[in-house]
Protein backbone atom coordinates (compact mmCIF):
# COMPACT_ATOMS: atom_id res chain seq x y z
CA UNK A 1 0.00 0.00 0.00
CA UNK A 2 1.28 3.43 -0.90
CA UNK A 3 1.64 5.98 1.90
CA UNK A 4 -1.22 8.46 2.19
CA UNK A 5 1.08 11.41 2.75
CA UNK A 6 4.63 11.87 1.56
CA UNK A 7 6.55 14.94 2.67
CA UNK A 8 9.53 15.17 0.39
CA UNK A 9 12.47 17.46 1.12
CA UNK A 10 10.33 20.32 2.41
CA UNK A 11 12.28 23.44 3.29
CA UNK A 12 11.08 26.81 4.53
CA UNK A 13 12.98 29.90 5.48
CA UNK A 14 11.73 32.98 7.36
CA UNK A 15 14.26 35.74 6.78
CA UNK A 16 17.60 34.25 7.72
CA UNK A 17 16.09 31.47 9.81
CA UNK A 18 15.58 27.96 8.47
CA UNK A 19 12.33 26.92 10.10
CA UNK A 20 12.08 23.68 8.14
CA UNK A 21 15.18 21.91 6.88
CA UNK A 22 14.72 19.10 4.37
CA UNK A 23 11.79 17.46 6.12
CA UNK A 24 11.24 13.90 4.94
CA UNK A 25 8.29 11.92 6.24
CA UNK A 26 5.87 9.26 5.10
CA UNK A 27 2.53 8.65 6.77
CA UNK A 28 0.31 5.63 6.13
CA UNK A 29 -3.45 5.54 5.87
CA UNK A 30 -5.04 5.33 9.33
CA UNK A 31 -1.95 6.23 11.32
CA UNK A 32 -1.95 8.49 14.35
CA UNK A 33 1.19 10.62 14.15
CA UNK A 34 2.38 13.09 16.77
CA UNK A 35 4.70 15.92 15.78
CA UNK A 36 6.52 16.54 19.03
CA UNK A 37 9.02 19.21 19.89
CA UNK A 38 9.67 22.35 21.91
CA UNK A 39 8.17 25.67 20.84
CA UNK A 40 9.88 27.05 17.77
CA UNK A 41 10.99 23.64 16.53
CA UNK A 42 8.95 23.97 13.32
CA UNK A 43 6.16 21.50 14.11
CA UNK A 44 3.35 24.03 13.64
CA UNK A 45 5.05 25.42 10.55
CA UNK A 46 5.15 21.92 9.10
CA UNK A 47 1.45 21.42 9.90
CA UNK A 48 0.52 24.71 8.24
CA UNK A 49 2.55 23.77 5.22
CA UNK A 50 0.62 20.51 4.91
CA UNK A 51 -2.69 22.39 5.39
CA UNK A 52 -1.70 24.89 2.71
CA UNK A 53 -1.52 28.07 4.79
CA UNK A 54 2.19 28.35 4.15
CA UNK A 55 3.99 27.68 0.93
CA UNK A 56 7.30 25.86 1.34
CA UNK A 57 10.36 27.25 -0.44
CA UNK A 58 11.18 23.84 -1.84
CA UNK A 59 10.05 20.24 -1.73
CA UNK A 60 6.85 18.36 -2.47
CA UNK A 61 3.85 17.26 -0.44
CA UNK A 62 2.10 14.25 -1.94
CA UNK A 63 -1.34 13.19 -0.81
CA UNK A 64 -2.47 9.94 -2.46
CA UNK A 65 0.38 10.37 -4.88
CA UNK A 66 -0.48 13.83 -6.18
CA UNK A 67 1.48 16.94 -5.33
CA UNK A 68 -0.64 19.48 -3.42
CA UNK A 69 1.99 22.15 -2.81
CA UNK A 70 0.40 24.51 -5.34
CA UNK A 71 -3.17 23.84 -4.20
CA UNK A 72 -4.92 26.40 -1.94
CA UNK A 73 -6.14 25.09 1.45
CA UNK A 74 -9.77 24.83 0.31
CA UNK A 75 -8.83 22.32 -2.39
CA UNK A 76 -6.78 19.94 -0.24
CA UNK A 77 -8.41 16.70 0.97
CA UNK A 78 -7.75 17.41 4.62
CA UNK A 79 -9.13 19.37 7.54
CA UNK A 80 -7.63 21.10 10.54
CA UNK A 81 -8.50 21.48 14.20
CA UNK A 82 -7.06 24.85 15.18
CA UNK A 83 -5.30 25.60 18.43
CA UNK A 84 -7.81 28.29 19.45
CA UNK A 85 -10.62 26.22 17.84
CA UNK A 86 -11.46 29.09 15.43
CA UNK A 87 -15.19 28.52 15.74
CA UNK A 88 -17.27 31.07 13.82
CA UNK A 89 -18.69 33.30 16.58
CA UNK A 90 -21.68 34.50 14.54
CA UNK A 91 -22.95 30.99 13.78
CA UNK A 92 -24.67 28.45 15.97
CA UNK A 93 -22.86 25.19 16.72
CA UNK A 94 -24.88 23.29 14.11
CA UNK A 95 -24.14 25.96 11.47
CA UNK A 96 -20.45 25.84 12.34
CA UNK A 97 -20.35 22.09 11.79
CA UNK A 98 -22.57 22.25 8.67
CA UNK A 99 -20.25 24.85 7.14
CA UNK A 100 -17.98 22.24 5.54
CA UNK A 101 -20.72 20.19 3.83
CA UNK A 102 -22.49 23.40 2.75
CA UNK A 103 -19.35 24.65 1.00
CA UNK A 104 -19.07 21.27 -0.69
CA UNK A 105 -22.44 21.97 -2.28
CA UNK A 106 -24.57 19.75 -0.06
CA UNK A 107 -28.08 21.16 0.46
CA UNK A 108 -28.93 22.67 3.80
CA UNK A 109 -31.05 19.83 5.20
CA UNK A 110 -28.48 17.18 4.36
CA UNK A 111 -25.61 19.37 5.61
CA UNK A 112 -27.33 19.82 8.98
CA UNK A 113 -28.07 16.10 9.15
CA UNK A 114 -24.39 15.31 8.66
CA UNK A 115 -23.49 18.02 11.18
CA UNK A 116 -25.83 16.45 13.74
CA UNK A 117 -24.18 13.07 13.18
CA UNK A 118 -20.72 14.55 13.65
CA UNK A 119 -21.84 16.33 16.82
CA UNK A 120 -23.25 13.07 18.14
CA UNK A 121 -19.86 11.42 17.61
CA UNK A 122 -18.27 13.90 20.00
CA UNK A 123 -21.18 13.81 22.50
CA UNK A 124 -22.37 17.29 21.62
CA UNK A 125 -25.68 16.36 19.97
CA UNK A 126 -27.76 18.52 22.29
CA UNK A 127 -25.70 21.69 21.86
CA UNK A 128 -26.51 22.43 18.21
CA UNK A 129 -28.55 25.56 18.85
CA UNK A 130 -25.99 27.25 21.11
CA UNK A 131 -23.47 29.83 20.07
CA UNK A 132 -19.77 29.02 20.58
CA UNK A 133 -19.42 31.70 23.27
CA UNK A 134 -22.03 29.83 25.35
CA UNK A 135 -19.83 26.72 25.55
CA UNK A 136 -16.94 25.81 27.84
CA UNK A 137 -13.46 25.35 26.45
CA UNK A 138 -13.81 21.57 26.38
CA UNK A 139 -17.15 21.78 24.58
CA UNK A 140 -15.74 24.22 22.02
CA UNK A 141 -12.92 21.78 21.48
CA UNK A 142 -15.41 19.00 20.69
CA UNK A 143 -17.33 21.23 18.29
CA UNK A 144 -14.09 22.12 16.51
CA UNK A 145 -13.40 18.41 16.21
CA UNK A 146 -16.88 17.67 14.86
CA UNK A 147 -16.53 20.47 12.32
CA UNK A 148 -13.21 19.06 11.13
CA UNK A 149 -14.39 15.45 10.72
CA UNK A 150 -17.84 16.14 9.24
CA UNK A 151 -16.49 16.05 5.68
CA UNK A 152 -14.67 12.77 6.36
CA UNK A 153 -11.25 14.03 5.27
CA UNK A 154 -8.48 11.59 4.40
CA UNK A 155 -6.20 13.46 6.73
CA UNK A 156 -6.94 15.40 9.90
CA UNK A 157 -4.40 17.93 11.20
CA UNK A 158 -4.61 18.91 14.86
CA UNK A 159 -2.65 21.93 16.07
CA UNK A 160 -2.17 21.51 19.84
CA UNK A 161 -5.94 21.24 20.26
CA UNK A 162 -5.82 20.19 23.91
CA UNK A 163 -3.32 22.75 25.17
CA UNK A 164 -5.98 25.11 26.55
CA UNK A 165 -7.76 22.44 28.60
CA UNK A 166 -7.04 21.58 32.21
CA UNK A 167 -5.12 18.40 33.01
CA UNK A 168 -8.08 16.15 33.89
CA UNK A 169 -10.05 17.08 30.81
CA UNK A 170 -6.95 16.82 28.66
CA UNK A 171 -6.29 13.25 29.74
CA UNK A 172 -9.91 12.32 29.09
CA UNK A 173 -9.84 13.95 25.65
CA UNK A 174 -6.57 12.20 24.76
CA UNK A 175 -8.21 8.81 25.12
CA UNK A 176 -11.39 9.96 23.40
CA UNK A 177 -9.41 11.32 20.47
CA UNK A 178 -7.60 8.02 20.14
CA UNK A 179 -10.87 6.08 20.15
CA UNK A 180 -12.43 8.47 17.67
CA UNK A 181 -9.46 8.12 15.37
CA UNK A 182 -9.66 4.36 15.53
CA UNK A 183 -13.41 4.43 14.87
CA UNK A 184 -13.16 6.80 11.89
CA UNK A 185 -10.02 5.35 10.37
CA UNK A 186 -8.91 8.89 9.47
CA UNK A 187 -5.18 9.60 9.53
CA UNK A 188 -4.38 12.05 12.33
CA UNK A 189 -1.35 14.32 12.48
CA UNK A 190 -1.23 15.86 15.89
CA UNK A 191 1.08 18.69 16.94
CA UNK A 192 2.07 18.83 20.60
CA UNK A 193 4.87 19.91 22.87
CA UNK A 194 3.69 17.51 25.57
CA UNK A 195 5.60 14.21 25.42
CA UNK A 196 3.06 12.52 27.67
CA UNK A 197 0.31 13.43 25.23
CA UNK A 198 2.33 12.11 22.31
CA UNK A 199 3.10 8.86 24.12
CA UNK A 200 -0.55 8.41 25.10
CA UNK A 201 -2.06 8.84 21.66
CA UNK A 202 0.33 8.38 18.81
CA UNK A 203 1.19 5.25 16.85
CA UNK A 204 4.37 6.97 15.80
CA UNK A 205 6.09 10.04 17.18
CA UNK A 206 8.06 12.48 15.05
CA UNK A 207 10.49 14.31 17.30
CA UNK A 208 11.44 17.69 15.89
CA UNK A 209 14.08 20.18 16.93
CA UNK A 210 15.30 23.39 15.28
CA UNK A 211 13.53 22.72 11.99
CA UNK A 212 14.74 19.13 11.68
CA UNK A 213 13.30 15.73 12.36
CA UNK A 214 15.42 14.19 15.11
CA UNK A 215 13.78 10.78 15.16
CA UNK A 216 10.67 8.98 13.97
CA UNK A 217 9.37 5.90 15.72
CA UNK A 218 6.97 4.29 18.13
CA UNK A 219 6.84 5.92 21.54
CA UNK A 220 8.33 2.98 23.41
CA UNK A 221 11.11 2.65 20.86
CA UNK A 222 12.01 6.35 21.05
CA UNK A 223 11.98 6.17 24.81
CA UNK A 224 14.18 3.10 24.95
CA UNK A 225 16.50 3.92 22.09
CA UNK A 226 16.65 7.69 21.55
CA UNK A 227 18.76 8.50 18.50
CA UNK A 228 20.07 11.78 19.85
CA UNK A 229 20.79 13.40 23.18
CA UNK A 230 17.99 15.89 22.43
CA UNK A 231 15.42 13.14 22.02
CA UNK A 232 16.57 11.39 25.18
CA UNK A 233 16.18 14.63 27.11
CA UNK A 234 12.87 15.61 25.55
CA UNK A 235 11.06 12.29 25.93
CA UNK A 236 11.00 11.31 29.57
CA UNK A 237 13.69 12.15 32.07
CA UNK A 238 17.27 11.05 31.49
CA UNK A 239 20.61 10.94 33.25
CA UNK A 240 23.57 11.49 30.94
CA UNK A 241 27.17 10.42 31.24
CA UNK A 242 30.05 10.37 28.79
CA UNK A 243 31.50 7.07 27.75
CA UNK A 244 34.56 5.85 25.88
CA UNK A 245 34.84 2.42 24.31
CA UNK A 246 37.40 0.08 25.89
CA UNK A 247 37.10 -3.25 24.16
CA UNK A 248 34.44 -4.94 22.00
CA UNK A 249 31.43 -4.48 24.21
CA UNK A 250 32.82 -2.71 27.23
CA UNK A 251 32.98 0.97 28.01
CA UNK A 252 34.38 3.30 30.60
CA UNK A 253 31.92 5.85 32.03
CA UNK A 254 33.02 9.24 33.29
CA UNK A 255 30.83 8.59 36.32
CA UNK A 256 33.01 5.87 37.76
CA UNK A 257 36.29 4.08 37.14
CA UNK A 258 34.59 0.74 36.69
CA UNK A 259 34.57 -0.74 33.19
CA UNK A 260 31.08 -1.87 32.34
CA UNK A 261 29.81 -4.49 29.93
CA UNK A 262 27.13 -3.10 27.63
CA UNK A 263 24.59 -4.73 25.40
CA UNK A 264 25.27 -4.64 21.66
CA UNK A 265 28.12 -2.89 19.93
CA UNK A 266 29.75 0.07 21.62
CA UNK A 267 30.59 3.19 19.59
CA UNK A 268 33.96 4.87 20.11
CA UNK A 269 32.64 7.60 22.33
CA UNK A 270 29.47 9.50 23.12
CA UNK A 271 26.69 9.94 25.64
CA UNK A 272 25.22 7.14 27.71
CA UNK A 273 21.57 7.56 28.68
CA UNK A 274 20.26 6.09 31.89
CA UNK A 275 16.55 6.39 32.69
CA UNK A 276 15.59 7.21 36.32
CA UNK A 277 13.62 3.96 36.66
CA UNK A 278 16.71 1.93 35.71
CA UNK A 279 18.55 3.13 38.79
CA UNK A 280 18.01 1.77 42.28
CA UNK A 281 18.87 3.34 45.59
CA UNK A 282 20.24 0.62 47.86
CA UNK A 283 21.95 0.10 51.16
CA UNK A 284 25.66 -0.74 50.78
CA UNK A 285 25.06 -4.17 52.28
CA UNK A 286 22.34 -4.99 49.73
CA UNK A 287 23.06 -7.99 47.47
CA UNK A 288 23.02 -7.33 43.72
CA UNK A 289 24.32 -9.26 40.69
CA UNK A 290 28.08 -8.89 40.12
CA UNK A 291 27.64 -7.23 36.74
CA UNK A 292 25.76 -4.27 38.19
CA UNK A 293 27.46 -0.98 38.61
CA UNK A 294 27.16 0.45 42.13
CA UNK A 295 28.37 3.78 43.41
CA UNK A 296 28.35 5.48 46.81
CA UNK A 297 25.87 8.31 46.76
CA UNK A 298 24.52 11.06 48.93
CA UNK A 299 20.75 11.46 48.90
CA UNK A 300 19.98 15.17 48.58
CA UNK A 301 16.30 15.34 48.04
CA UNK A 302 13.28 13.07 47.92
CA UNK A 303 10.17 14.24 46.09
CA UNK A 304 7.11 12.16 46.81
CA UNK A 305 4.80 12.12 43.80
CA UNK A 306 2.20 9.82 45.34
CA UNK A 307 2.62 6.79 43.11
CA UNK A 308 6.42 6.91 43.26
CA UNK A 309 9.14 9.22 44.40
CA UNK A 310 12.01 10.96 42.69
CA UNK A 311 15.28 10.72 44.52
CA UNK A 312 18.01 13.22 43.69
CA UNK A 313 21.33 11.65 44.58
CA UNK A 314 24.82 13.08 44.21
CA UNK A 315 27.45 10.73 42.85
CA UNK A 316 30.85 12.34 42.71
CA UNK A 317 30.00 15.81 41.47
CA UNK A 318 27.00 14.69 39.49
CA UNK A 319 23.33 14.73 40.30
CA UNK A 320 21.36 11.63 39.30
CA UNK A 321 17.59 11.36 39.23
CA UNK A 322 16.23 8.05 40.45
CA UNK A 323 12.65 6.89 40.26
CA UNK A 324 12.02 4.74 43.30
CA UNK A 325 9.04 3.16 45.07
CA UNK A 326 7.54 5.34 47.80
CA UNK A 327 9.40 5.01 51.09
CA UNK A 328 12.44 3.33 49.56
CA UNK A 329 14.82 6.21 50.15
CA UNK A 330 13.58 6.95 53.66
CA UNK A 331 14.74 3.55 54.91
CA UNK A 332 18.35 4.16 53.96
CA UNK A 333 18.59 7.89 54.02
CA UNK A 334 20.85 8.21 57.01
CA UNK A 335 22.84 5.07 56.36
CA UNK A 336 25.49 4.34 53.82
CA UNK A 337 23.54 4.64 50.57
CA UNK A 338 24.46 3.63 47.07
CA UNK A 339 22.94 3.95 43.64
CA UNK A 340 23.09 0.89 41.44
CA UNK A 341 22.18 0.06 37.86
CA UNK A 342 22.53 -2.72 35.37
CA UNK A 343 24.89 -1.56 32.58
CA UNK A 344 22.68 -3.46 30.16
CA UNK A 345 20.11 -0.67 30.67
CA UNK A 346 22.52 1.99 29.42
CA UNK A 347 21.62 3.32 26.02
CA UNK A 348 24.67 4.55 24.12
CA UNK A 349 24.45 7.43 21.67
CA UNK A 350 27.48 7.79 19.44
CA UNK A 351 29.08 11.20 19.25
CA UNK A 352 28.74 12.74 15.81
Amino acid sequence: MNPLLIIDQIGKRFGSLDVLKDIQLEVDQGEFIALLGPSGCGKTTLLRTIAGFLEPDRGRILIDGSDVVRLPPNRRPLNTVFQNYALFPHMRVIENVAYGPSRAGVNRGEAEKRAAEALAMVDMATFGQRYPRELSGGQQQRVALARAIVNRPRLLLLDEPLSALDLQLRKKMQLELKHLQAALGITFIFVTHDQQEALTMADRIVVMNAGRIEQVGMGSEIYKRPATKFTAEFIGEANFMKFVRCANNTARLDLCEQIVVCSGTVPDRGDAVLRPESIRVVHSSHELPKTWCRLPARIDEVVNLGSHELVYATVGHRLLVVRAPVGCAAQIKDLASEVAFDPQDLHLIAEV
Partner: protein
Amino acid sequence: MRSWISPVQMMAAPIAFITAFFLVPLSVVLLASFQDKSGAFSLGEYVRILADQYHLGVVLTTFRIAILTTLVCLVLGYPLAWYLVRVVRIRAWRRICVILVVVPLFTSNIVRSFGWMVLLGRNGLVNDGLQAAGLIERPIRFLGTEMGILIGMVYVLLPLVVLGVGNAIAKVDTSLERASADLGASSVSTFFHITLPLTLPGVIASSVIVFTLATSAYVTPALLSGGRVTVLSMLIFQQYSATFDFNYGGALSAVLLVVTLVMVSLAGRIGRGTK
Protein backbone atom coordinates in the same frame (compact mmCIF):
# COMPACT_ATOMS: atom_id res chain seq x y z
CA MET B 1 -11.79 60.77 55.84
CA ARG B 2 -11.75 59.83 52.21
CA SER B 3 -13.01 62.39 49.81
CA TRP B 4 -14.54 61.19 46.58
CA ILE B 5 -16.84 62.53 43.95
CA SER B 6 -20.22 60.86 43.84
CA PRO B 7 -21.65 59.82 40.44
CA VAL B 8 -24.25 62.58 40.76
CA GLN B 9 -21.58 65.22 41.21
CA MET B 10 -19.61 63.74 38.34
CA MET B 11 -22.61 63.84 36.00
CA ALA B 12 -23.79 67.29 37.07
CA ALA B 13 -21.58 69.27 34.71
CA PRO B 14 -22.30 67.26 31.52
CA ILE B 15 -26.03 67.13 32.29
CA ALA B 16 -26.15 70.87 32.87
CA PHE B 17 -24.21 71.45 29.65
CA ILE B 18 -26.45 69.22 27.55
CA THR B 19 -29.58 70.73 29.06
CA ALA B 20 -28.51 74.31 28.55
CA PHE B 21 -27.02 74.04 25.10
CA PHE B 22 -28.89 71.15 23.50
CA LEU B 23 -32.20 70.22 25.15
CA VAL B 24 -33.43 73.77 25.75
CA PRO B 25 -32.65 75.08 22.24
CA LEU B 26 -34.09 71.89 20.75
CA SER B 27 -37.29 72.37 22.73
CA VAL B 28 -37.52 75.98 21.55
CA VAL B 29 -37.17 74.83 17.94
CA LEU B 30 -39.70 72.01 18.31
CA LEU B 31 -42.20 74.20 20.15
CA ALA B 32 -41.96 76.79 17.41
CA SER B 33 -42.67 74.14 14.79
CA PHE B 34 -46.04 73.41 16.39
CA GLN B 35 -47.15 77.06 16.43
CA ASP B 36 -48.58 79.33 13.77
CA LYS B 37 -47.58 82.96 13.34
CA SER B 38 -49.86 84.09 16.17
CA GLY B 39 -48.33 81.57 18.58
CA ALA B 40 -51.34 79.23 18.75
CA PHE B 41 -50.93 75.44 18.45
CA SER B 42 -50.99 74.32 14.83
CA LEU B 43 -49.76 71.52 12.58
CA GLY B 44 -49.84 73.92 9.65
CA GLU B 45 -46.09 74.05 9.16
CA TYR B 46 -45.87 70.27 8.72
CA VAL B 47 -48.79 70.27 6.30
CA ARG B 48 -46.91 72.95 4.37
CA ILE B 49 -43.87 70.65 3.91
CA LEU B 50 -46.02 67.83 2.57
CA ALA B 51 -48.13 70.09 0.39
CA ASP B 52 -45.30 72.04 -1.19
CA GLN B 53 -43.85 70.00 -4.07
CA TYR B 54 -40.63 71.98 -4.04
CA HIS B 55 -39.97 71.59 -0.35
CA LEU B 56 -40.89 67.92 -0.37
CA GLY B 57 -38.45 67.55 -3.27
CA VAL B 58 -35.71 69.15 -1.16
CA VAL B 59 -36.31 66.59 1.58
CA LEU B 60 -36.10 63.73 -0.91
CA THR B 61 -32.97 65.16 -2.56
CA THR B 62 -31.29 65.46 0.83
CA PHE B 63 -31.88 61.86 1.76
CA ARG B 64 -31.07 60.60 -1.76
CA ILE B 65 -27.67 62.32 -1.60
CA ALA B 66 -27.10 61.07 1.94
CA ILE B 67 -27.91 57.45 1.03
CA LEU B 68 -25.78 57.57 -2.12
CA THR B 69 -22.92 59.15 -0.16
CA THR B 70 -23.12 56.36 2.41
CA LEU B 71 -23.17 53.62 -0.24
CA VAL B 72 -20.31 55.09 -2.27
CA CYS B 73 -18.27 55.60 0.91
CA LEU B 74 -18.79 51.94 1.83
CA VAL B 75 -17.97 50.63 -1.63
CA LEU B 76 -14.78 52.69 -1.77
CA GLY B 77 -13.92 52.56 1.92
CA TYR B 78 -14.22 48.83 2.60
CA PRO B 79 -11.56 47.74 0.07
CA LEU B 80 -9.33 50.62 1.13
CA ALA B 81 -9.65 49.62 4.80
CA TRP B 82 -8.98 45.99 3.81
CA TYR B 83 -5.87 47.06 1.92
CA LEU B 84 -4.54 49.06 4.86
CA VAL B 85 -5.23 46.41 7.49
CA ARG B 86 -4.56 43.16 5.66
CA VAL B 87 -2.46 43.76 2.58
CA VAL B 88 0.09 46.39 3.58
CA ARG B 89 3.02 44.71 5.30
CA ILE B 90 5.44 47.64 5.53
CA ARG B 91 4.63 49.73 8.58
CA ALA B 92 5.95 53.01 7.21
CA TRP B 93 3.81 52.72 4.10
CA ARG B 94 0.73 51.91 6.16
CA ARG B 95 1.37 54.95 8.32
CA ILE B 96 1.69 57.16 5.24
CA CYS B 97 -1.57 55.75 3.86
CA VAL B 98 -3.43 56.35 7.12
CA ILE B 99 -2.13 59.93 7.25
CA LEU B 100 -3.27 60.51 3.66
CA VAL B 101 -6.70 59.19 4.56
CA VAL B 102 -7.01 61.23 7.73
CA VAL B 103 -5.53 64.55 6.54
CA PRO B 104 -8.79 65.80 4.95
CA LEU B 105 -10.34 65.66 8.44
CA PHE B 106 -7.80 68.22 9.64
CA THR B 107 -8.49 70.82 6.97
CA SER B 108 -11.34 73.29 7.03
CA ASN B 109 -14.50 72.14 5.36
CA ILE B 110 -14.73 75.44 3.45
CA VAL B 111 -11.19 75.08 2.10
CA ARG B 112 -11.88 71.51 0.99
CA SER B 113 -15.10 72.47 -0.73
CA PHE B 114 -13.47 75.39 -2.54
CA GLY B 115 -10.77 72.98 -3.61
CA TRP B 116 -13.39 70.78 -5.23
CA MET B 117 -14.99 73.82 -6.88
CA VAL B 118 -11.67 74.48 -8.58
CA LEU B 119 -11.15 70.82 -9.52
CA LEU B 120 -14.69 70.21 -10.76
CA GLY B 121 -15.15 73.48 -12.65
CA ARG B 122 -15.68 73.74 -16.44
CA ASN B 123 -11.97 74.17 -16.96
CA GLY B 124 -10.96 72.36 -13.79
CA LEU B 125 -8.44 69.58 -13.44
CA VAL B 126 -11.04 66.79 -13.65
CA ASN B 127 -12.59 67.99 -16.92
CA ASP B 128 -9.19 68.82 -18.42
CA GLY B 129 -7.92 65.38 -17.46
CA LEU B 130 -10.92 63.55 -18.89
CA GLN B 131 -10.69 65.57 -22.11
CA ALA B 132 -6.97 65.04 -22.43
CA ALA B 133 -7.52 61.31 -21.98
CA GLY B 134 -10.10 61.44 -24.75
CA LEU B 135 -12.83 60.06 -22.53
CA ILE B 136 -15.15 63.05 -23.06
CA GLU B 137 -15.48 65.64 -25.81
CA ARG B 138 -17.11 68.49 -23.93
CA PRO B 139 -16.67 69.37 -20.25
CA ILE B 140 -19.13 67.64 -17.89
CA ARG B 141 -21.04 69.92 -15.59
CA PHE B 142 -20.28 68.84 -12.04
CA LEU B 143 -20.86 72.08 -10.14
CA GLY B 144 -24.47 72.70 -9.38
CA THR B 145 -25.39 69.04 -9.82
CA GLU B 146 -26.10 66.30 -7.30
CA MET B 147 -23.08 64.49 -8.73
CA GLY B 148 -20.81 67.36 -7.71
CA ILE B 149 -22.24 67.42 -4.19
CA LEU B 150 -21.88 63.64 -3.99
CA ILE B 151 -18.19 63.81 -4.97
CA GLY B 152 -17.51 66.48 -2.35
CA MET B 153 -19.40 64.64 0.38
CA VAL B 154 -17.74 61.29 -0.32
CA TYR B 155 -14.35 62.98 -0.15
CA VAL B 156 -15.16 64.53 3.22
CA LEU B 157 -16.72 61.45 4.80
CA LEU B 158 -14.65 58.59 3.34
CA PRO B 159 -11.99 58.74 6.11
CA LEU B 160 -14.66 57.94 8.72
CA VAL B 161 -15.61 54.74 6.89
CA VAL B 162 -12.00 53.71 6.35
CA LEU B 163 -11.19 54.17 10.03
CA GLY B 164 -14.40 52.54 11.29
CA VAL B 165 -14.36 49.56 8.95
CA GLY B 166 -10.58 49.20 9.26
CA ASN B 167 -10.98 48.83 12.99
CA ALA B 168 -13.65 46.16 12.47
CA ILE B 169 -11.50 44.22 9.99
CA ALA B 170 -8.50 44.34 12.32
CA LYS B 171 -10.62 42.70 15.01
CA VAL B 172 -11.50 39.66 12.89
CA ASP B 173 -9.29 36.75 13.92
CA THR B 174 -7.52 35.58 10.76
CA SER B 175 -7.68 32.00 12.00
CA LEU B 176 -11.44 32.15 11.30
CA GLU B 177 -10.70 32.87 7.65
CA ARG B 178 -8.14 30.08 7.62
CA ALA B 179 -10.70 27.74 9.16
CA SER B 180 -13.18 28.71 6.46
CA ALA B 181 -10.65 27.98 3.72
CA ASP B 182 -9.75 24.73 5.44
CA LEU B 183 -13.42 23.69 5.32
CA GLY B 184 -13.48 24.17 1.56
CA ALA B 185 -14.62 27.77 1.10
CA SER B 186 -13.12 29.86 -1.70
CA SER B 187 -11.83 33.30 -0.76
CA VAL B 188 -15.00 34.95 -2.13
CA SER B 189 -17.18 32.56 -0.14
CA THR B 190 -15.08 33.16 2.97
CA PHE B 191 -15.55 36.90 2.57
CA PHE B 192 -19.34 36.71 2.34
CA HIS B 193 -19.82 34.03 5.01
CA ILE B 194 -17.21 34.99 7.57
CA THR B 195 -15.47 38.33 7.13
CA LEU B 196 -18.41 40.48 6.05
CA PRO B 197 -20.82 39.27 8.76
CA LEU B 198 -18.16 39.74 11.42
CA THR B 199 -17.34 43.27 10.24
CA LEU B 200 -21.00 44.23 9.75
CA PRO B 201 -21.32 45.99 13.13
CA GLY B 202 -18.40 48.24 12.13
CA VAL B 203 -19.91 48.76 8.68
CA ILE B 204 -23.25 49.78 10.18
CA ALA B 205 -21.69 52.08 12.77
CA SER B 206 -19.69 53.84 10.05
CA SER B 207 -22.76 54.06 7.81
CA VAL B 208 -24.80 55.68 10.57
CA ILE B 209 -22.13 58.30 11.19
CA VAL B 210 -21.70 59.02 7.47
CA PHE B 211 -25.44 59.13 6.85
CA THR B 212 -26.20 61.53 9.71
CA LEU B 213 -23.32 63.81 8.76
CA ALA B 214 -24.41 63.72 5.10
CA THR B 215 -28.03 64.63 5.84
CA SER B 216 -27.04 67.54 8.05
CA ALA B 217 -24.09 68.76 5.94
CA TYR B 218 -24.31 72.41 4.99
CA VAL B 219 -21.03 73.84 3.76
CA THR B 220 -20.19 71.20 1.14
CA PRO B 221 -23.60 71.17 -0.60
CA ALA B 222 -23.94 74.95 -0.29
CA LEU B 223 -20.63 75.62 -2.03
CA LEU B 224 -20.79 72.83 -4.62
CA SER B 225 -24.45 73.34 -5.52
CA GLY B 226 -23.85 76.78 -6.94
CA GLY B 227 -27.42 77.58 -5.89
CA ARG B 228 -28.85 75.04 -8.34
CA VAL B 229 -29.44 72.19 -5.88
CA THR B 230 -30.98 72.76 -2.49
CA VAL B 231 -30.72 70.38 0.44
CA LEU B 232 -32.62 70.47 3.72
CA SER B 233 -29.89 72.15 5.76
CA MET B 234 -29.74 74.99 3.21
CA LEU B 235 -33.52 75.36 3.29
CA ILE B 236 -33.51 75.50 7.09
CA PHE B 237 -30.73 78.08 7.01
CA GLN B 238 -32.83 80.23 4.67
CA GLN B 239 -35.79 80.12 7.08
CA TYR B 240 -33.72 81.31 10.00
CA SER B 241 -31.43 83.80 8.25
CA ALA B 242 -33.41 85.21 5.33
CA THR B 243 -37.16 84.82 5.81
CA PHE B 244 -37.08 84.72 9.64
CA ASP B 245 -39.83 82.07 9.59
CA PHE B 246 -38.89 80.29 12.83
CA ASN B 247 -42.02 78.13 12.78
CA TYR B 248 -41.35 76.66 9.36
CA GLY B 249 -37.61 76.36 10.10
CA GLY B 250 -38.50 74.42 13.24
CA ALA B 251 -40.77 72.06 11.34
CA LEU B 252 -38.07 71.39 8.72
CA SER B 253 -35.51 70.76 11.49
CA ALA B 254 -37.90 68.33 13.17
CA VAL B 255 -38.36 66.42 9.90
CA LEU B 256 -34.57 66.20 9.44
CA LEU B 257 -34.13 64.98 13.01
CA VAL B 258 -36.94 62.41 12.97
CA VAL B 259 -36.08 60.88 9.59
CA THR B 260 -32.41 60.62 10.60
CA LEU B 261 -33.31 59.00 13.93
CA VAL B 262 -35.59 56.49 12.17
CA MET B 263 -32.80 55.54 9.74
CA VAL B 264 -30.27 55.21 12.57
CA SER B 265 -32.54 52.98 14.65
CA LEU B 266 -33.26 50.82 11.59
CA ALA B 267 -29.52 50.42 11.07
CA GLY B 268 -29.12 49.57 14.75
CA ARG B 269 -31.77 46.87 14.41
CA ILE B 270 -29.97 45.33 11.41
CA GLY B 271 -26.75 45.44 13.43
CA ARG B 272 -28.32 43.59 16.35
CA GLY B 273 -29.86 40.99 14.06
CA THR B 274 -26.43 39.86 12.89
CA LYS B 275 -25.05 39.18 16.34
